[in-house]
């Protein structure tokens, strides 16, 4: 339907008051503070108004629970707003906490609060806490933010307020002074000396035992007589090999050692085969 442009503005002017008239509000609001275990309807009921502030603050102590029942209205009819909160605002620190009403479609809403629902900062505040009822929704109705009453939180004398531990903040921690384990130390020199001498003393004992058993020293002359070069080189090369190992331990590194060891090893192998062949001849001849 095409409205003539001349008529649109007057029509809107007529409609505006109707549209701007509705606002969210609440009615039949009662606040009850119930002590623990007192049952339904035990506490004192107080009426809350959507336009004025109650004269005295209410007290919520210890294990008491606070119950608010109201009916949210848009204009004149009870309706369910998109948001219905009781906002508690602490004036000293500016901390606010909101608690949502559970609202039915016809606008009836209720809320239960107790001290354990509140942030711990509320429990230790010195001033009364402002409680506001906040109603808002989609559409063009004016929302409501009405400071309805004040609340003082009293501490229960039996249970002291427990302040939770401060949250973990990631900053630099104090410096750690680590005490390192002491380096391992050698045993006392006397002990080492004693054992070294004991080991060295075992050597003459061994040689003595060999001699006692008749260590075939007399074969040396015959062996050298038959093939002196082979036996000499063989024995000498074994001693030279041990010498190479000693030099490797003291001064040389591996790359200096290996060529020398290879040379000495070859000498030992060749001369050894000759020498041992000679020994074998003597053994087979029954002289050993």
């Amino acid at each position, binding site marked *: 339907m095409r409205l003539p442009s001349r008529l649109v503005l007057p029509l809107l002017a007529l409609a505006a008051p109707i549209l701007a008239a509705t606002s969210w509000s609440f009615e039949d609001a009662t606040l009850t503070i119930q002590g623990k275990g007192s049952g339904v309807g035990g506490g004192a009921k107080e009426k809350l108004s959507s336009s004025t502030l109650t004269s005295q603050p209410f007290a919520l102590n210890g294990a008491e629970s606070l119950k608010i029942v109201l009916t949210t209205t848009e204009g004149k009819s009870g309706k369910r707003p998109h948001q219905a909160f009781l906002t508690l605002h602490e004036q000293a620190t500016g901390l606010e906490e909101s608690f949502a009403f559970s609202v039915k479609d016809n606008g009836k809403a209720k809320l239960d609060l107790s001290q354990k629902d509140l942030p711990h900062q509320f429990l230790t505040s010195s001033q009364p806490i402002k409680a506001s009822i906040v109603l808002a929704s989609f559409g063009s109705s004016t929302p409501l933010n009405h400071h309805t009453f004040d609340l003082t939180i009293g501490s229960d004398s039996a249970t002291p307020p427990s302040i939770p531990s401060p949250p973990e903040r990631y900053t630099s921690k104090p410096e750690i002074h680590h005490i390192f384990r002491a380096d391992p130390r050698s045993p006392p020199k006397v002990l080492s000396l004693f054992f070294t001498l004991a080991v060295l003393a075992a050597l003459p004992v061994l040689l003595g035992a060999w001699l006692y058993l008749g260590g075939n020293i007399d074969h040396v002359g015959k062996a050298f007589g038959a093939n002196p070069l082979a036996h000499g080189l063989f024995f000498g090369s074994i001693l030279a090999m041990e010498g190479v190992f000693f030099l490797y331990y003291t001064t040389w590194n591996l790359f200096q050692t290996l060529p020398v060891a290879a040379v000495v090893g070859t000498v030992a192998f060749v001369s*050894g085969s000759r020498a041992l062949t000679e*020994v074998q001849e003597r053994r087979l001849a029954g002289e050993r």
Partner: protein
Amino acid sequence: QDIVETIWQNYVDKTPQRVKLLDTFMAFLIVVGVLQFVYCVIGGNFPFNAFLSGFSATVGQFVLTASLRMQTNPENKADFRSISHERAFADFVFGSLILHFFCVNFI
């Protein structure tokens, strides 16, 4: 007591002289090994690799001597027909040199 005596007498009489030479060498190695171990227990095992290389030198030498003894023992001639005594001795020397090299390296 008597059994020990008999065994010892049997050993002294019956074993060939060269085998006894090897046996004394093995006893010497055992003594040195025990001394090293006792020293390690008393004095602590710092530096540990020194103890390991010394101890393993005695143990390795003992093993090589045992194999030489096995191969040159006349009683075992049937088992080691292809290996002459000289060959066994050459293997013994070769093995000992390699053992010494590794122990010197590790110490």
